[in-house]
């Protein structure tokens, strides 16, 4: 009977479940209900058809299809929905989960393997859920000499910062969590937090390998931030705005990658480095420094960092799409449908054909989202592909690439953009 893996006891399992249920009920009653009341007190309740929607009224209306629709609409346009679900955290986490799965399957395919296979019957589709369950049921071990508050908070901050990054990404016209004037600068401001979180978590672990990894991460992120910032300047020169939505809308005619391929390449390489993807995954170089700054993280803390990094991956890919690939612009898939068909559906003999969701969202919205997701998926594919193709490079080479080649290329791109503006190709009175 080994100590490391205690034998599963059903009675203890049941006991722990009952205990947990008890505490959840107690905490919900003592804390959750008052919190809900307080929140309800402060929330601006929507007014629909002249009636103030209280929670009671909302529940009543939900049972009535005709009344439920405007209620749902008002919910869908609220900030809460944006933050929780669609362009916000839920969507990003979903894309991140999909990315993890696709990465594993694709890498396996490239390496002539099978990849996740058995979990979930169909090609291991439930593997991720299994991994999550595994991580959540693992014991969290915090090293004795670690700086506990920082150590525990660091993964949460990492996820939070990644989510804040997602908040700035416009997905469809008007569908963005925070539509700010200086969106691009806000993106850079948010990116600036990642090195700090990394180095703080590395410092707090009080161990050699995380420390080396954290300092490497710091050097790497910091060095590639400047070419990253400079490579976006070309787009700003051409569009004259820092608002990401406007930048995306400015590419109705032609995506900027056509005019500024150098800038796009620089941005892409910097993106790989900021994401710590191979070939730039030096902070986690397992053959030199075990797992870099993640070495001491165990169980769900590691899972959270992974979640954060994949959310970050999505955010960066989406930013690439917005800046260089024209965002959501693209031909609408099918000719616009008639309004009546949208609202009441079409009766085909005994079957009534309903287009789900269309009464709530416009068709342009669907088209935009589909284009955006397709483009993002393509970019994510190109972010994932190097992992199967390239080895890891060395830190001095990395810094050299960042400081010598990429910055020079970024300046070349700036001058190209400047030339485009002054030659009258782009801008007021220009062709595009």
């Amino acid at each position, binding site marked *: 009977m080994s100590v490391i893996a205690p034998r599963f006891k059903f009675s203890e399992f049941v006991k722990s479940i009952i205990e947990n249920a008890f505490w959840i009920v107690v905490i919900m009653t003592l804390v959750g209900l008052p919190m809900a009341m307080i929140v309800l007190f402060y929330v601006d309740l929507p007014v629909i058809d002249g009636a103030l929607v209280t929670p009671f009224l909302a529940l009543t209306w939900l049972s009535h299809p005709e009344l439920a629709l405007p209620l749902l609409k008002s919910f869908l346009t609220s900030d809460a929905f944006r933050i929780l679900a669609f362009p916000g955290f839920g969507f990003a986490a979903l894309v991140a989960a999909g990315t993890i799965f696709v990465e594993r399957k694709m890498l396996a395919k490239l*390496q*002539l393997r099978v990849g996740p296979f058995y979990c979930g019957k169909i090609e291991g589709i439930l593997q991720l859920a299994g991994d999550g369950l595994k991580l959540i049921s693992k014991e969290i071990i915090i090293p004795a000499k670690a700086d506990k508050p920082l150590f525990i908070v660091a993964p949460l901050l990492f996820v939070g910062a990644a989510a804040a990054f997602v908040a700035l990404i416009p997905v469809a016209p008007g569908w963005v969590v925070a539509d700010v004037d200086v969106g691009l600068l806000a993106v850079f401001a948010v990116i600036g937090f990642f090195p700090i979180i990394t180095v703080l978590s590395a410092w707090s672990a009080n161990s050699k390998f995380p420390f080396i990894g954290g300092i490497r991460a710091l050097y790497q992120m910091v060095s590639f931030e400047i070419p990253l910032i400079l490579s976006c300047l070309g787009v700003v020169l051409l569009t004259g705005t820092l608002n990401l939505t406007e930048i995306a809308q400015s590419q109705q005619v032609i995506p900027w990658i056509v005019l500024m391929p150098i800038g796009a390449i620089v941005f892409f390489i910097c993106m790989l480095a900021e994401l710590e993807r191979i070939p730039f995954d030096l902070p986690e170089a397992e*053959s030199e420094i075990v797992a870099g700054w993640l070495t001491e993280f165990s169980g769900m803390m590691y899972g959270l960092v992974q979640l954060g990094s994949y959310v970050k991956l999505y955010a960066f890919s989406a930013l690439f799409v917005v800046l260089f690939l024209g965002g959501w612009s693209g031909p609408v898939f099918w000719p616009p449908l008639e309004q009546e068909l949208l609202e009441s559906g079409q009766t085909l003999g005994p079957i009534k054909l309903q287009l789900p969701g269309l009464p709530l969202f416009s068709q342009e919205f669907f088209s935009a989202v589909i284009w955006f997701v397709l483009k993002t998926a393509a970019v994510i594919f190109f972010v994932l592909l190097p992992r199967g*193709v390239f*080895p*890891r490079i060395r830190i*001095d080479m990395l810094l050299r690439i960042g400081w010598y080649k990429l910055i020079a290329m970024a300046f070349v791109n700036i001058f190209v953009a400047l030339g485009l503006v002054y030659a009258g190709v782009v801008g007021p009175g220009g062709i595009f």
Partner: protein
Amino acid sequence: MEGKTTVPALAELPPGLELQRVDERIMTLNVGPQHPGSGHMRIIVQIDGDRIVACDPDPGYVHRGEEKMAEYRNYVQNIPHLERPVIHDSCNILYPYCLATEEILGIEVPERAQYVRVIAAELNRCVYTLYWLAIYGIFLGHSTMFMWPTGDRELLIDLLEKMTGARVTHAYLVPGGVRNDVPANFEDVCLRQVDYFEKRIREYAGIFYDNPILISRTRDAGALSRHDAVALGTTGSVLRASGVDYDVRKKEPYDCYDSLDFETSVMREGDAYARSRVPWLDMMQSCRIIRDALSKMPKSGSVRVKLKPNPKGPEMVSYKRVESGRGALGCYVVSDGKPEPYRVKMSVGSFRNLIALPYLLRGEKLGNMPAVYWSLNYWPVEADR
């Protein structure tokens, strides 16, 4: 009697190991033994920032005492034990022992057995090299280069399994030949799979050997000059990567190697890249050898000399060398007239190449450590025996 170890004072350290300054800047890093980048050994590196100031390799995590155990078993019973240090290269590691034992026992090996042995040894060399290459890939962070060789290795393991009946620990070579003849249609299967295998390993060039990132990473990392390579007594691919054309198969042909057609692969640069490329070139030559041996092999004949149950040799010594996957592999067998050898000593390539490690790593970047370390064509368990 009490294991008194002599701890050397600082001034006594060899030129490769002295600390330049004892400083709070210098950090001692234990790389291994439970580390993804060290195998089962420990490398104690002292780093000043990103530079390695000193390095002290410490094999000895998996010591089995093979040499001691060999003194208690008779010549045939030693076979399954002595192949254990490098199970991926088990035919080659048994080869010098069998040659030396045959000299002591005075046995001539039948001709067909010689060819079968050579085929098995070359297949095993490829199997080992692929495994080594896979780990080299993962050390450099190239996960595809980990998966492809481990997958392609299956082709050869399948062949070896058809020949020997076991996938890794074959126990195939015995004093006096091989344990069993190859199966009936072995030649066709072998030719087909070796051809495909050669096609596969040529594809490694595009993704690995010609990859600019890999080249820039390993070029000039841990360069070993021709003079140093000779003086340090390195062997195998490390030596040949430094421009010394030395291959035991050519210089001191054993069994039927003198009748086979192949070339020695030599590179001049002596850096980690050349050291990683030479085994790959060797694999091509192995395919050539296998094809040649298959065509020249006698179609029938005995493959094993019948030995007495407890064979005894005269009181003599024998030192035989072969070229294994990691370089020259010598076996020194001392017989005192009993059925058990008096002393078996294996002079293995890994151990000889390990001497170069502290020498090469001094002044390198920490990021170069796995690249240089594993490019020495090193197998921790073999060094440890």
